[in-house]
Structures are given as structure tokens and as C-alpha cells.
């Protein structure tokens, strides 16, 4: 087990380097650079950038240097000094910008995950055990509905209804008076009052697929001889279900942890933009749109690291939960 983990960790190094290079290439690929985008953005409001200033920006940010030179300069800073560079737009260190938003991103993602699981898990089990019953059809229908409705649309509709019908403020995660207040019980309560909107919207979207996976896995297991045997031995139905088939069917839930971590950064991006959530997603989108290279690069690098770590974690967990994987 330990050897396996060490081997996996060592493999991460070349993949990360390859990925960081690819990320940099991808961000460079669109025509123009940060300065062009900056000028274009301001021009959209008929604002004019001083022409000397534009040329100066380009040389200040090193955008007039060859691509490889920019990459080496950036990646050596990351590796040697842990310095992810300066965001062009905000003139702030990239790491500062990202960490600032991490805590709330974590809150939103994890609460969404918990809610998704809390809904999908029992419904999945139920609809497998009572296959083709009315309850199965109803929950499946609702699940598919949630999957089919684009979450940003749901967000917009919910916001419109809340604002226009109830005069409530649903955007963001805090009311104005708590936005910059230090943490207190009041602020936590206020967070909870706002949190349910994005969490429900996001969970609606994620449950359907998990329900289906859970249902399918359960159905595979339910008809296996060991279930019949256990039932024949007189085990109560509830205990039987939880102890044997559910335990086996739960694997896909653990696998989701693998993609949960990168989701911390990029998940729910559009919903976060629509709802003006102070999470990492909108910042990532902004940095890509404005070609703010180092910020976007750091985000992509972070996402890759999280994917790799997440996959490793879920592999370890799977091995712990399911002995069959361990012995392979």
C-alpha cells in the first residue's frame, strides 16, 4: 500500500510539469494578449487607454518576450520560490487572490456534496429495491428533471421570483451588513440563509446521475445469490440491504471524491457567476476572459493538482472500503 502511494506521488511530478506547460500554451493560444483584451474591454465603454501606456504595459508584463521565456520565468518562480506571479489585472499576488476565495468555495462545494449524497443515496437504494414502483418512477422523473434543467437557468428563475415576488435578496452569500463583518454567529446564520439557494440549485443538478448509478449498482447486487442466502438465513431486510449490497454499490460515491476536488475551483462556475457568489469559479472565468495569464495558469495548475490528489485519495479510499480492489 505504501509503495503504491509513493509510486503514485512520484508519477504526479512529470504529469504536473506537462500539464503546467500545456496550460500555459492553451492560455497563450487565443489571439492577442492581456493588453489587447484590456484595451478592448475599456473600449467597450468607449474608454481610451493612453497609447504609450498600452505599449508600456506590454513590456512591463513581459508580454513582448518569447513564449518559452515567459513560461520558464513563471514555472521557476512557482517551483523555486512558491511564487505564482502577479495578476496582471489586480496587480496582486496570484496566491493571495486564490486563497481569499477558497474558504467559501469549500463551504459551498462541500454542502452541495453532502446534500447531493443525502438525496441521492436513499432514493437510489429505494428505487432499486422497489424497482418499477410508482415511487421509483416519481423519483426518477424528478431526478431527470433536475438533470435536464440547466442550473444557471434555474438560478436565474429562482432569483427573479425571489426578487420580484418576495422582494428578497438572493445573490451572493451574505447580506450587505455582513459582507465584510468579522465572523460571528450572526454572520454564520446569515451565510446559512443565503447558502441554501446555490446549494439546492447545484444539488438538483447532481443528484440524478448519482441516483441512476446507485440504482443500477444495487440492481446488479440485489439478484446475486448471497442476497438470497442472507435473506434465507432470516436477516432483517433493512440490515441485509445496508450490510451487503449497499456496501458494494457505494463505490461510485467514493469515486466522486476524485472529481470533487477540482470541482472546488471550477465547479458551478456559471451558477456562481449568475448568483454573484464570492467563490473561485467567477475569478477563474474572469482570468481566462481577460487573458490574465499567471492567474489563469495558477488556477489550471491548482485544478490539475487537485485532480491528481483527488484521484489518489479516492483510490486509497476505495482500496480501504472494498477488499477486492486491494487484492488486485
Amino acid at each position, binding site marked *: 500500500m505504501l509503495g503504491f502511494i509513493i509510486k503514485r506521488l512520484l508519477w504526479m511530478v512529470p504529469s504536473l510539469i506537462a500539464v503546467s506547460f500545456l496550460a500555459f500554451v492553451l492560455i497563450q493560444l487565443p*489571439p492577442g494578449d492581456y493588453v489587447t483584451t484590456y484595451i478592448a474591454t*475599456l473600449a467597450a465603454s468607449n474608454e481610451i487607454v493612453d497609447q504609450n501606456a498600452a505599449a508600456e504595459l506590454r513590456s512591463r508584463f513581459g508580454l513582448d518576450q518569447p513564449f518559452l521565456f515567459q513560461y520558464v520565468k513563471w514555472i521557476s518562480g512557482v517551483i523555486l520560490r512558491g511564487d505564482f506571479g502577479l495578476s496582471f489585472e489586480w496587480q496582486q499576488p496570484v496566491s493571495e487572490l486564490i486563497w481569499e476565495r477558497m474558504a467559501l468555495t469549500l463551504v459551498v462545494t462541500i454542502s452541495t456534496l453532502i446534500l447531493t449524497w443525502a438525496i441521492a443515496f436513499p432514493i437510489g437504494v429505494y428505487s432499486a429495491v422497489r424497482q418499477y414502483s410508482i415511487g421509483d418512477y416519481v423519483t426518477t422523473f424528478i431526478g431527470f428533471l433536475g438533470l435536464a434543467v440547466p442550473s444557471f437557468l434555474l438560478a436565474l428563475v429562482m432569483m427573479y421570483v425571489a426578487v420580484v415576488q418576495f422582494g428578497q435578496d438572493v445573490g451572493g452569500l451574505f447580506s450587505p451588513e455582513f459582507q465584510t463583518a468579522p465572523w460571528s454567529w450572526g454572520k454564520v446564520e446569515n451565510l446559512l440563509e443565503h447558502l441554501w439557494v446555490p446549494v439546492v440549485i447545484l444539488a438538483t443538478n447532481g443528484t440524478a446521475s448519482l441516483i441512476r448509478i446507485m440504482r443500477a449498482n444495487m440492481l446488479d447486487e440485489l439478484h446475486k445469490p448471497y442476497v438470497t442466502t442472507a435473506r434465507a438465513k432470516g436477516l432483517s431486510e433493512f440490515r441485509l440491504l445496508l450490510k451487503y449490497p449497499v456496501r458494494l454499490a457505494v463505490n461510485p460515491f467514493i469515486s466522486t471524491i476524485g472529481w470533487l476536488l477540482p470541482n472546488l475551483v471550477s465547479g458551478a462556475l456559471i451558477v456562481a457567476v449568475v448568483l454573484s457568489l464570492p467563490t473561485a469559479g467567477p475569478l477563474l472565468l474572469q482570468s481566462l476572459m481577460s487573458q490574465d495569464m499567471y492567474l489563469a495558469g495558477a488556477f489550471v495548475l491548482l485544478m490539475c493538482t487537485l485532480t491528481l490528489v483527488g484521484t489518489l485519495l479516492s483510490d486509497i479510499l476505495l482500496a480501504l472500503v472494498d477488499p477486492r480492489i486491494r487484492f488486485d
Partner: protein
Amino acid sequence: MANKKGKGLKGLALTRRQLMAGAGGLAATSIVSWSASAQQAKEAPEFVQLVADKKLPPLAERLPKIPLVVTPVERVGRYGGQIRRGLRGSADHNGILRMVGNQGLTRWNLEFTDVLPSVAHKWDVSADSSEFTFHLRPGMKWSDGHPFTADDIVFVFEDCLANTELYKTPPALWTIGGQMCKVSKVDDVTVKFKFAGPYGMFLQQMATPLGQHPTLFPKHYCTKFHPKYVQNTADLAKAANVPDWGALFRLRCGDIEIPSRWGNPEKPTLDPWTIAEPYTGGATRVVLKRNPYFWQVDTEGNQLPYVDGIVFGISQDVESLMLDVVSGKIDIQERHIDTLQNKPTVAQSAQRGNYRLFETINANSQQMAIYPNLCHKDAAIRAILNNKDFRSALSHGINRQEIIDIVYLGQSQPWQFGPRPTHPWYHEKFGRQFTEYDPKKSNELLDKLGYTRRDGQNIRLRPDGQKLFFAIDVIPTLYPDQVDALELVKRHWSAIGIDVKINTIERALYYTRGDNNDHDFAVWQGPGGLEPLIDARDWVAIHPQGSRFGLPWATWYVSNGRDGQEPPENHKRRMKLYDEARSISDVKRQGVLMKEILDLATDAFDAMGICLAPNLFGIANNRLRNVPAKMPGAWSWPNPGPSLPQQYFFTG
């Protein structure tokens, strides 16, 4: 409106002596009105308590000896309240600038025709318009109580703008003939700007956002990050996690158009409100609080601003900003929401949201300019596009009224280019030529030019057998209306046998294609409707990113003939006239020169347009008063700033 402007412009056409007398007279009136009301001078309630607690000097010590007296738009207001306004998630620092940050040495009047005293209470101009002496307000203070003097302005020019580590080249506004102006201190409240040559537009340029450098960097604060004044800037930069002192300086002191200008609550300013919650990458809102040392008073001697503060909410998405507007969560907004498509929704919800609409006079001239690339790389296409008859055939082939009715909700009129009809320099022929819809005439012209052969789709063929086909570059995310309008143009042109591809591209690609001179046609909004001399890119090829009919010509002009392509004689004459017009301050003479320029441009007919840029709108809460019912909207007149938000107030 036209009448008013005429007067204003005449007011500008003063000789030096008249100007001095006029400015002196103005100053005198402000002294009189001030001393009359100095005794009962009033201030915001929050300061009364602070003064009583001796935490803040009394009002008389905080105000300059000659404060700027502002005449409120409607009436004298009352203190209190917070203005709620919206910003977009990214690159919207200028949204703050427009509301609070336009405190230059001069400022615009409401009509956008003349400059008024602002930080400088009067000025003298040398006879050849190359030397400007500004008289500052004695006793004026930065928002931290430190005196604002001539030294601050000298510091900006000698140690900042002229410092090649901070500004590789000084901003273009401060240079004439490639040389930056020399700024010298005469005494504590007098500074002299000396240019290498005449600079007729200088006073107006100082009222625009890019002209605010003199009042941007407080010397006593910014020297803390300047290697000339402190030794350890390298350590400071390292501690702040930025690469060098220049980055640190920009992070702490900002610049005119960068987000960090609003990211440092410690930096003293001259603005009516100062930053309390900064604009940074992670911010979800920006809050500004009243500046206790603000140097303006109303006609009764009450210190401005009336409103306690401004709260800018940051919406990642413009649609959610719209939602805030219609639900009455915004007190004043025009930025981002003022598209014609939004107007019906906004107007419908006015009662529920408890707001009213005000009008912004579009400073643009043309809503959608279609620029043929007269310097096209392909010689055959270049020859076709450079034929004036060909271009007029294209122009006659557009059914402008249909586009106006369908895309612009009937709110405009057919139009080409030039100063708007309300402007004193309005040039009718330049604005209206070739705008009638006349496909028959177009066909005749095209036939006469020899494009008589057609292919199976009825598209005309060039003599070399190729289709008459052009791509038109447009950015759908920036101006969605232009894509709709182009769809109609495409239909109109195919009726006269011209094939067009609407090349919808991303904005950075649009600029890159322009820089490489790769476009056949490109569309953009045509500026300069209210400020035909400040932004003349559509009638003189002077803007290497904006004069899209001849970008290489503009490069040639900007580089003094070193790069780019040499333009034809007609253009060179216009450039010469333009240079002359800019170097003089006599507005009447400027008008004469401008007419000559526009005559030449009419004759050349470089580009075509669809319709006059329609006026836009903004919303203001019904309780928020002193917001003018009509104001210009332009970058040079960065609305709503020059309408002085410091005199807006909330009724009880």
C-alpha cells in the same frame, strides 16, 4: 441645446487677458459668496461630533480659503444616505472613476462645451498657448488632512511621470512634439506647465479622465515607495510580494486607469469620498466614505458631499445587475444597463423600483460605422475599396430606415459621420451624404464600374472572375445590436449583388486583425459626436487602433512617418489641419479648420455608417435629487462624474 453650446464655445474663444480677467472674476465671486456664509458654514452630522471630541479640526480649518462653490442642480440638499450602485465583476475600475474620481485641475461644464475651475481656481495662458499657469486653492488639503500644494504636482511630473522605471514613456497627453511638459513651482499655490509647442486643447484635456495625473499622487504618501526618497524600496516590494518598486508604487498609489487606484484605503485623495472597503480581486463590494477635507461647498456654504457614502455592489453578471435595478436596489446606474434593448424593461419597472429615467446624450456620432480597409493588403481588393463610387454604391444600397426600425426601435435617423446635429460644428453633407436608400442607383454605379457579370447566386463578379465578397469583422459580445444590423446589411447588399460574410470574432482577435491590417471591413461605434476635435479618428486617420479605414495611415501619422504607410494627399492635408487646430486655443479658428477637415473628409468619403448614435438612459432613485435630467455620456466627459455626484442628495 445648440444655442447654449454656441455660447459656451464662444466663451472659450478668449484672449489671454480676457481669460485672466474672467477667471479672476469668477474667483472673486466665490470669495464674496464664501465670506458671506462662512459664519454659518455647515458640515455633516458625523463630523460635528468628531470636531466636538477634538478628533477632527473644525470645518474652517479643513476647507481651503477659496473653496469651490457648487451651484446645486435643483436645490440645496441635506446630509445623509448612501448611494447604491453596481459594478461588473472584471475590469470595471473605471466605473468607480466615473462616479468619484474626476478631480482634475479643470472640469467640464454640464453642457460639455467649456471648462470651469476645479482644483485650480484660476489660470493664465500664454499668448501662444504653450505655457499654462495654474493657481491652486490656498489651504486645500488631502483627505488625510495634509496640505495639497504645488509640490505635489511637481512631484508627479518630476519624480513619477518622468521616471523611466515607472513610466517608460510619459503618457501622450503630457507631451508635445515628443517632449514632456516642464512643470515648475512658482510658489506654494502656483504651478507653471511649459510645453515645447502650442497646446490649444490643454485645458480641455485636463478635464478628461486621462488628464488627472497632477492630482493623483500625494507627495507625502507616495514618496514612501519611491527610491529617490527612501532607501529600502526593494525590501518593501519584497514584503508586499511584488517584483519591484514600480509595482509597489502602482499597488499603493495606483494610476488613472488601473484597479489598484481603488484598492488602497490608506492613500489620500482629493475625491468627495474615499475608499473604505477596497476594490480588489476578491471583493464582492466596494464602499466609499465621505472625505472630511473635501474642498467644495454648496451655495449656502455647506460642505459637500451631501451623501455619506457610496456602496458599489459587484455583479459578476450584467443580468443580475439588471435585476437589482428593476427591483429598486440601485440608486443611480447607467453603466452596463443602458442598452436600447434594456430600455423597455427598465421603463416598465420604474414604478415598482421607485426610480425615474434620465437621458444621457450619446457622445458618439455613429451607432455602427462600417469601415472598408482602404489599405487592404490584397491589391485587387484595395483597388475596389478605394473607388469612391463603389463605396457610395454600397452606402446607397443600405436600407437604413429598416435597420433603425427593427434594430434600434425607431429611435434614430440615417447618418454617416461628424459632429452631431446639435453641435455648433455640425456638417450636414458629411453627416447625410449617400444615406438615401436607392438600390437602383447602386446597381447603376456598380454596372458602370464594370461588375456586370454575375454568378449563379446573382452575385457580381470581379474582372478577374472572383466573387465580389467581403468579410466584415464584428464583436458579438460587445455590441450585439451590430450583428443584428449587419444581418440586414448583408441582405441589402446581396440585393445589389455583393456577398458579405459576417465575421463574428472575439474582441482580442478583432484588435489583432486590425493591428495586422487583415480585415476587409470592420464595424465599430463611431465616436466624436460631441467632441469632434478630441476624438477625430473617423475623419482624420490618427488612431492606430481606431481609424479602421486606414490603420497604417494612422501609424504613419503617429510615428511621424517612420512606420505604416504614407496616406494620400487628401489625408495628409487633414492631418496638417488637425495638428494646427489642436495647437491653438481659439475655438472660432478651430471651427474654421474643422470645417476644412470635414469638407475634405466629405469629399473622400472614407467610411459609411448606419444611423446617429441614439441617446441612452440611466436610472435614478426617486429620492435621489440634483441628478440632471439630461447629461452627456462620454469617456472625455466621464458621466456621471462631471454632473458632480457630491451634490446629489436623498430627500427625507
